[in-house]
């Protein structure tokens, strides 16, 4: 990533979990196995040499402890070898900042939906604050789990979207919104039951999408009405879904807000977002001494002072 915000290279590799989801130890093995190769390839891709690197940023949290520690070790080693500053970045904040870079949004309400997260975040009082979130499962996780029960491969989001396009009949599923929070697990149980009852898969997928996205739209809308912000940013892996995008566009239109969906290469988890946020942070004077650079698996979005945004 250049300091002007140009992505020079953004290589990623995702571990496809076998039955039963991701195991922390297996995932950190994956990171340590392929990490060095990715660093090497990205330098080649970007056409820069080690000596061009002026800053090393790493994801400090939130996330799985073993994985965070593996990459933190690589980042520390790299920063020390190259004698450049180290910056620790919050994963959720990075999703927002890379989305703002792409959209040129200044101060959006961010809808961040992925396999591990479902959050509505906005900047207020010097920090990014979580206005709403899921009380149980993340949206991406719901789609993957349902997909698995009906034999779709991981990740199931795209297959569900595809199947939903042929759905005709809406089957009522539990719709659970609590203020700006929501809960998905009841919907998942009911959807599994419909499947056992022999309801066509296309109709179930259609009903899941309409219900789950409808709930998300409502909490996002509540956050927009509440904060009176005029930009809505959709990011995270589930941002790929066209129906979700269409619904949130509707929300934006109703409130006179601009809408942007982060493009797939920058919406999922990747390194460019960490690098870019690291640059912003460093420009605001942030630097992490190696001795203090322990990872923070439970680092909450609102625990970091966002110094580079103090103009808002």
């Amino acid at each position, binding site marked *: 990533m250049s300091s002007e915000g140009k992505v020079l290279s953004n290589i990623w590799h995702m571990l496809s979990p076998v039955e039963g989801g991701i195991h922390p130890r297996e995932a950190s093995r994956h990171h340590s196995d392929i990490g060095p190769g990715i660093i090497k390839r990205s330098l080649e891709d970007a056409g820069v040499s080690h000596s061009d690197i002026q800053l090393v940023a790493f994801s400090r949290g939130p*996330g799985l402890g073993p994985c965070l520690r593996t990459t933190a070790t690589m980042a520390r080693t790299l920063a020390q070898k190259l004698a450049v500053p180290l910056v620790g970045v919050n994963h959720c904040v990075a999703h927002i900042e890379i989305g703002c870079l792409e959209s040129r949004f200044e101060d959006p309400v961010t809808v961040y939906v992925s396999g591990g997260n479902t959050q509505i975040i906005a900047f207020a009082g010097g920090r990014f604050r979580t206005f709403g*979130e899921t*009380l149980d499962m993340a949206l991406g996780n719901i789609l993957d789990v349902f997909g698995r029960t009906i034999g779709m491969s991981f990740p199931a989001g795209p297959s569900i979207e595809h199947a939903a396009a042929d759905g005709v009949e809406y089957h*009522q599923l539990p719709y659970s919104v609590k*203020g*700006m929070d929501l809960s998905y697990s009841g919907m998942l149980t009911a959807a599994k039951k419909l499947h056992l009852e022999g309801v066509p898969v296309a109709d179930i997928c259609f009903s899941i999408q309409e219900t789950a996205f409808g709930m998300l*739209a409502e909490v996002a809308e509540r956050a927009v009405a*509440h904060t009176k912000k005029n930009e809505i940013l959709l990011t995270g892996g589930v941002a790929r879904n066209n129906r979700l995008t269409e619904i949130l566009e509707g929300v934006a239109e109703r409130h006179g807000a601009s809408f942007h969906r982060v493009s797939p290469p920058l919406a999922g988890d990747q390194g460019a977002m960490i690098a870019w946020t690291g640059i912003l942070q460093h420009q605001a004077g942030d630097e992490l001494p190696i001795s203090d650079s322990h990872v923070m698996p439970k680092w909450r979005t609102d625990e970091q002072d966002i110094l580079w945004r103090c103009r808002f």
Partner: protein
Amino acid sequence: MQILKKQLLTLGAESAIYIVEYWGMTLALKWRPRKPYIHNEIDKLLRTSRTSRECKMLTFVRTLGVPTPAVHSVDIRNHLILMDFIEGQQFKQLVNTSSKKRITTLCHEFGKLLGIMHMSDIVHGDPTTSNAVVDMQSKMWLVDFGLAEKNATIEMKGVDMHLLRRAYETTHWALQETMLESTMEGYVEISGDDAEAVLSRADEIRERGRYH
């Protein structure tokens, strides 16, 4: 309904509130319009059930001593509720302009009102400072009962208190500790020994959704 003069007060997330003149009275008209981007069946169901729920709950919690606007009429088919207009200010706005002492007093009252509802197994469902109106006599009124529920369990009450805390965090960050403290005082004053289970559940809920 025969309405003479209509003026938009606010456009919320799910409704528009109008101030209307009705037989010489100034009333508030809450309308839940259609949302074209939501599946029609879901949209209709939500607008209908929430309109009906809001009417029932506004009226019911009044009998418990929680000040709410009196409902004058309801039109379920068109998703309309006609109720008293409370002349005053949103609690949310007041926090920005009031002395710390006044804010503390109001939070205490807010906590008491939630406590009263919880003691009767009612949750508000969206207990934020937007949904409390303070009138000229400094009396606090609660509005927006579309998400309220009866027969509330500890879990549901815990969610209510979690939402309240988060509203303070996101909207009144500079004063959140003081506000939370006086709200809890008011809440505990009413709910006594029952408070502990609810508040520890609220803490648990707070951690639940987070990334792990």
